[in-house]
């Protein structure tokens, strides 16, 4: 997890006529209110972070929080007003049009909330589209696209038009299209938000399966905190263009940085999110029960067994080496403690 793929340094995106000049005058401290009074709207406010190879960063925020704008800055669908963005060490904002197109054709894929399929092309034509844009022969692109159709499980529907598919199926096409050029970096802009809850869950599982296989570097945008917890390696929570907290799901749940983040974590069933590793006692004592749990186990799955033990339970890593211990009371504290009492 050391190679940095995406790196943002003090990225700003401000909409408005004289945004650039105002940003220069502000010396890097942007107050949304004063900007708004001068007719400028702050989309992204001083965002700095890195995404490593194979990591999935989920950017979570409510509508208007600037999460989509941030993504569009990084894919350079819109130019950032200030700051620096590096993609695999290349300064994105310095690329000329041709280099940018080259980057998109070979390195980037993107999935959209409203699917954004081309209405006049069939499933397979839509998926083959980025390949044909690259200049790949029609026959080759179609056969490659057929592989993608299989990957997302749409066999038999390759000659359908987007309008003939359900939402979930359309988004599978969107996913397949974004993967057709085998990009290293994968942007997903609220890909499952327009889908029904059951389909959404199914697509999330499918997505995790794909990511397990493909190991892309991912930026995933969502407004659904549960979705973020389920998918993310790390989560960035945004509000009014500012990244409020950027951390692993467990740390966010356990130590919300701001009041705003805490509100999201309150209702989260921790036993479903946290791993044993997140709550265990790192000091190893001798007085342990015979029962052992893996540190990568989700609490919910082992809670019942731990609670039946009288002594602390040993926690082991994948080599069966004891790395810590956990007391049953800790489980009870985690699950029920620290939450607002519900009257």
């Amino acid at each position, binding site marked *: 997890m050391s190679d940095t793929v995406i790196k943002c340094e003090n990225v700003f995106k401000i909409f408005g006529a004289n945004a650039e000049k105002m940003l220069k005058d502000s010396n890097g401290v942007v107050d949304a209110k004063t900007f708004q009074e001068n007719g400028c709207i702050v989309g992204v406010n001083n965002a700095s972070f890195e995404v490593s190879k194979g990591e999935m960063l989920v950017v979570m925020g409510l509508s208007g929080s600037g999460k989509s704008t941030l993504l*569009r800055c990084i*894919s350079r*669908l819109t130019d950032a007003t200030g700051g620096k963005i590096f993609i695999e060490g290349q300064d994105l904002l310095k690329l000329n*049009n041709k280099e940018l*197109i*080259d980057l*998109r*054709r*070979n390195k*980037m*894929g*993107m999935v*959209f*909330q*409203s*699917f*954004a*399929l*081309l*209405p*006049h*092309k*069939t499933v*397979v034509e839509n998926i083959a*589209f*980025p390949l044909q*844009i*690259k200049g790949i022969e*029609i026959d080759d692109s*179609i056969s490659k696209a057929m592989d993608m159709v299989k990957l997302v499980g749409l066999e038999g529907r*390759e*000659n359908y038009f987007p309008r003939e598919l359900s939402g979930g199926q359309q988004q599978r096409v*969107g996913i397949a*299209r*974004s993967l057709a*050029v085998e990009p290293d970096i994968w*942007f997903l802009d609220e890909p499952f938000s327009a889908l029904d809850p059951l389909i959404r869950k199914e697509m999330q599982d499918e997505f995790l399966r794909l990511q397990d296989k493909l190991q892309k570097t991912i930026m995933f945008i969502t407004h659904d905190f549960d979705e973020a917890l389920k998918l993310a390696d790390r989560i960035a929570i945004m509000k009014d263009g500012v990244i409020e907290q950027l951390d692993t799901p467990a740390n966010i749940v356990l130590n919300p940085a701001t009041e705003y983040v805490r509100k999201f974590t309150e209702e989260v069933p921790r036993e479903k999110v946290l791993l044993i590793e997140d709550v265990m006692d790192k000091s190893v004592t001798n007085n342990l029960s015979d029962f052992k749990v893996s540190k990568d186990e989700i609490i919910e799955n082992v809670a019942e067994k731990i609670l039946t033990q009288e002594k602390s339970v040993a926690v082991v890593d994948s080599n069966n080496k004891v790395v810590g211990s956990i007391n049953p009371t800790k489980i009870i504290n985690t699950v029920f403690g620290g939450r607002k009492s519900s009257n």
Partner: protein
Amino acid sequence: MELIKKYPKVFQWLFLLVVFFALCFAIEVPETYKFIRGQAEFVKDPNQSFYVFLGKEVRYYAFDVFWRLPPLLGWLPIWINDSLFFLMNEWLPMEFWNSDTQTYKTRPLVLQITREITSIMTFLIELIREILLGGLKTIVAFTSWDWVGSNSWAKMPGLPWTVVAAGSAILAYKLSGKGLAVFAGLVMVYISIFGQWKPSMQTLSFILVAAPLSFIFGIGFGILAFKSKRVEKALYPILLVMQTMPQYAVLVPALVLFGVGDHAAVIITMIVAVPPMILLTLLGLRAVPPEVIEAGRMSGCNNWQLMFKVLIPTARRDILIGVNQVIMVCFSMAVISAFIGAKGLGFNLLLALNQLNIGLALEAGLCISLIAILLDKMSLAWANKQVDYFGNLTFYERNKSVLYFGIAVFIGVVLAYLGSFYFKQGFNYLFEVPHNKGISTADFWNRGVDWIFDTFFVYIKAFNTWLIVEVLQPMRALYLRMPAVATLVLVVGAGYIIGGIRSALVVCGLTLFIALSPWWDRALVTTYMATFGVIVSCIIGFTVGTLCFQNKHSANFMLGVCDIFQTFPSFVYLIPVMMLFGITDTSVLIAVIVYATIPATRYTIEGLRSVPMALHDAATMSGVNKFQRLTKIEFPLAFPHMMLGLNQTIVFALFMVIIGAFIGTEDLGQYILKALSDKNGAGIGLTLGICVAFIGLIFDNLIRTWVEKRKQHLGIA
């Protein structure tokens, strides 16, 4: 007072009407008032006043300025003429190489440019024409085969009609399937058997040049306007005027610039057909969802790919409507441009109408309409065509169409060859059925018309007289009785009430232009005819539309009927009414009503359909009956869209009124028609056209402003 506060608009309107009528009664009709008021011509009459502007003398009959404004813009047509003449004959003479005489020749630049364009157009038309009808001129133009010109035998025969018929059927099959193929074949066979082959192919060759060129230019300018705000701003007013400008009016200036013949007709058709194409391209491109554009960008499209692989295909729906419009305009121009010497069905149609040979006119008109429908359907099928990537096609399957066409050519040629032995009279029916040797139903129709006329003469005559004496004449007198100032107050007041000061100023400017032109009275007559047509059309259209809307199938059926009727060239509408009512104002008005009812009906159905389903359900659950639902829910919500229909109805009505001049009316159209045969007609024709366009734009502005406000008010903008 409370009433005034509650309904401020009603009282504003009332006040306006009171002022209007007060002015009408306060201003007397001058005793010397004659229907014809001013002339931008050199007729010297001792009673006329005159003024000189820019060295142009304008004579007119002077009235009190409250009654009629003096024609202060009377110099405009003369000035346009002079400028055109100067451009064509004197401006910027240059040396040009003439390859025929092998010498340099001095010619004004504009003349040379127009001649170049002319020769390109002529070449294109002739090329297609020679493929369809025979000849070798164009091909020789590329080479130096002098022997072709000097040997009469070296003439390429055209394709036998059997081959063209089979070819179009095969093409239709490849594009769409059996249904269209049968239709295409039948159309071609019909044309041939009824002896319309040659003029039809002439018209077709004209269309096959004009339509694609209009399409290309329309889409090109549409893209430019989409890319650059500046281009859009520059184009917009021109597009707006062109939308309401009668097609007649463009004839005369083009005549001056490009001369007489098919090439000039193609250029005029482009002038008329390109604006709607531009507008619809722009509309379609604007409506492409931003995420689709982003998806295109993220797929790595460069600008070119983004435009042609993402934007235009996604905007296909609107662009196809544009193609449909282009084809419609082309066919309607195919008839109108017969006035400036275009050959083909249009020429025959005009000739037949002139001779009052309704049967012949009907046959020619039917041919034009059939070809129009066929091309429309084919272009639609072509745009919707899908590629099959997975069929493992054999060579035979892939090249089936070409193969069949080859066979058709062979059989056709053999048949034509055999035919030349069989038919000894000099007409080879298997090659081409000559114009006057086909089956003709003209006699039948003529006799039918005579019969109808004989049998129902009394009733038709009675109706005709009643309409003219009791309705039309009084209405016309009423319009002409309006003092210019009163009309101006009424129009500007309406503009102010509806759209505030901005709208009032625009409308005032447009009205003043007409009032200061020498044709204010004529414009009033045009307006009266259009008004009558629009009122009746709206009543019919709204009623029919509402009735058809009650049932899904009848609504779809009606929209289909509207589609087909809209494909007919506007001139065709004159045929049946002339059959029944002869050469009277009634004929024109009935043609106007039929033509203008199409948009009225269409927009009524579409408007009612656009009412959201949830509202229907909500209304039903509130316990309304069908009638209540219609009056309380559907009409109020559909009204803005229906008003847009009214807008279209007005434009259609104005077009038809102007075309009606061909039958003989006393309005602006008559003068446009006159200008055609006047050597100084270009300026007059253009100014008259602008007058008609402005009448349309006045209503357009008022209605659009109202609709926008209303939509905002209802929250459905």
